[in-house]
């Protein structure tokens, strides 16, 4: 296929090419994004464009009449973001035509994400496209490319294991809670430890709709502060036997040298609620929960290592799928490119 007269371009920076400090500098907030878009529109030769602006990537997709236009756009971006042309050369990247499509396909399917196979990026690509469409920045070429991108991402997600399993410790724990209780909205959560991890855990469960949250700590005032932030109740460690008996999920992350939850305490708690499972998440080092508690009926104990192993296993499973996904991207890009090239020729 001959090179078309107009060019489908992509330039920008992402977590592969630029460290966080540089990405922070390059990031376009709403105001700068609007200014840059206005500049794009005013640049002669720019026929279509869309901005994908997330915490890990700032990418500009568009259609331009000639390479000079691209040079002007890069200069405009450097001015909009305050980076120097040298910085862009070191940390930026660009793709054209077929390669730009392949990149967008890979991005939307989560193949280019920091957390391989994550799904949030597809929503962000959709939002970027919707915004561009609403502003009439896009035209026939980008409309077609983005529509095909969404189809390709959906196909990859459905036909490969790239999105299977959770890959962070927190999401693995939430996933496990779902396997035990079905819905988190029915669960009463007890968070033992009011440190940083306890605080984050309480907030994570609150944001996922847990029925109630109780925070227990050696220092009651700390527990009260964390509980207030998470909309829950505070308890002292002396109240643990009753609190464990009333809870469905218990996370523990104290710095105590010994077991905060001996198996006898858990066994006594289970006597009050034998038919209701108890999910114990031990996030402490050294461990807070006596491993013997795992042998009790209806008690499911997971520690940091267990959760990390599951997350790693899921990630390895995703990585094993990467080659297959890349092959799908290549195949779909090859199928789309002749149509796009034809449209680009007509635009010129």
């Amino acid at each position: 296929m001959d090179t078309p007269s107009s060019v489908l371009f992509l330039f920008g920076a992402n977590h592969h090419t630029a460290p966080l400090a540089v990405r922070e500098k390059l990031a376009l907030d709403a105001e700068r994004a609007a200014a840059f878009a206005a500049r794009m529109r005013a640049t002669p030769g720019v026929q279509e464009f869309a901005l994908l602006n997330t915490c890990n990537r700032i990418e500009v997709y568009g259609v331009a009449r000639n390479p000079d236009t691209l040079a002007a756009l890069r200069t405009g971006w450097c001015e909009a973001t305050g980076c120097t042309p040298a910085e862009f050369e070191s940390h930026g990247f660009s793709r054209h035509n077929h390669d730009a499509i392949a990149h967008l396909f890979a991005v939307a399917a989560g193949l280019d994400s920091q957390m391989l196979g994550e799904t949030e990026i597809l929503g962000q690509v959709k939002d970027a496209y919707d915004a561009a469409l609403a502003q009439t920045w896009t035209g026939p070429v980008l409309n077609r490319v983005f529509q095909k991108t969404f189809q390709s991402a959906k196909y990859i997600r459905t036909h490969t294991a790239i999105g299977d399993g959770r890959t962070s410790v927190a999401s693995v724990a939430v996933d496990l809670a779902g396997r035990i209780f079905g819905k988190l909205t029915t669960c009463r959560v007890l968070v033992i430890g009011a440190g940083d991890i306890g605080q984050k855990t309480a907030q994570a469960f609150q944001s996922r709709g847990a029925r109630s949250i109780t925070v227990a700590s050696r220092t009651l005032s700390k527990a009260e502060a964390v509980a207030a932030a998470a909309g829950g109740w505070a308890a002292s460690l002396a109240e643990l036997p009753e609190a464990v008996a009333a809870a469905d999920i218990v996370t523990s992350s104290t710095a105590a040298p010994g077991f905060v939850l001996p198996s006898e305490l858990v066994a006594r708690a289970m006597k009050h609620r034998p038919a209701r499972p108890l999910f114990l998440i031990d996030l402490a080092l050294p461990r807070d929960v006596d491993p013997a508690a795992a042998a009790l009926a209806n008690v499911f104990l997971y520690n940091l290592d267990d959760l990390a192993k599951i997350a790693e296993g899921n990630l390895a499973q995703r990585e094993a799928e990467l080659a297959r996904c890349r092959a799908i991207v290549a195949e779909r890009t090859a199928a789309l490119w002749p149509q796009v090239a034809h449209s680009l020729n007509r635009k010129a």
Partner: protein
Amino acid sequence: MLSLLTDRTLLWLGALLYLAGFLTGLVALTKRQPSAGQRTILNLFLVGGWGFQMAGLYVRGLAGGGCPLGNTFEIVQFVAWSAMVMYFFVGTIFRGSLLGLFTAGYAAALGLVSLLIPHWDLVRGQKLFGNNPWIEVHAALAVFSYGVFGLLALTSLMQLLQNWSLKNKRLNGLFWFLPSVVQLEQINYRLVLLGVTLLTISLGVGASWWVRNTESVHLPKLLVTVSVWLCYFVVLLLRWRGRLVSVRFAWVCLVLFCVALLSLGPVNSNRHGYKPVARSR
């Protein structure tokens, strides 16, 4: 063409459709994400199988002049049919889970085994219930409760698998599709409650006629039937009191159903006052 559709042919078709449903479910499991389409196909096979099985039982019922419970073959078929009825009610709770696959395999196994053992269908009772609809209700409810206990055995098996998976941190593959522990606990409790209720009503109806003629039921049948009821009643009581829960409850339900299935032999060999006749078709 219609003459080819004898009762056994219809029952064969039913069993084969259950088997097809089971195989479809297995294929769907090998995919990473079984599609809604595959689940629909599985359910269509199950509905089709159930329809053919019901048609086959209906034809036999007409020929026998009552509910088709005239021999071991018919009882086993009726148990499979009842389990499928329960699945259609319970299965909606377990959307996208393994219960359809398990029920399909169970119904296919019961259906095919009963069809492949000619001995079970050599003789069958005629006018079993002596034109007494209450005795017929008693028998049908009793066998239907076995269907409920059969489904309970399947959900208990699923609970054992889910528990093993969570305790041993083996969470992928087949285990991914199992319902949550709490869902299984709840459905098991409801199933044992329903099964015991049906069996109690059945025995109550049967007892009201038995007291008028105590010789109408032989002692072995009486003992076995009451024992099965008593066992399930005790299980229900212990579950209600929270004394038998989780894995132990699941094991007991599974073992008890195997025993209950075996008890069908003595129960059937002591049918009240029916005259066995050679199978006619």
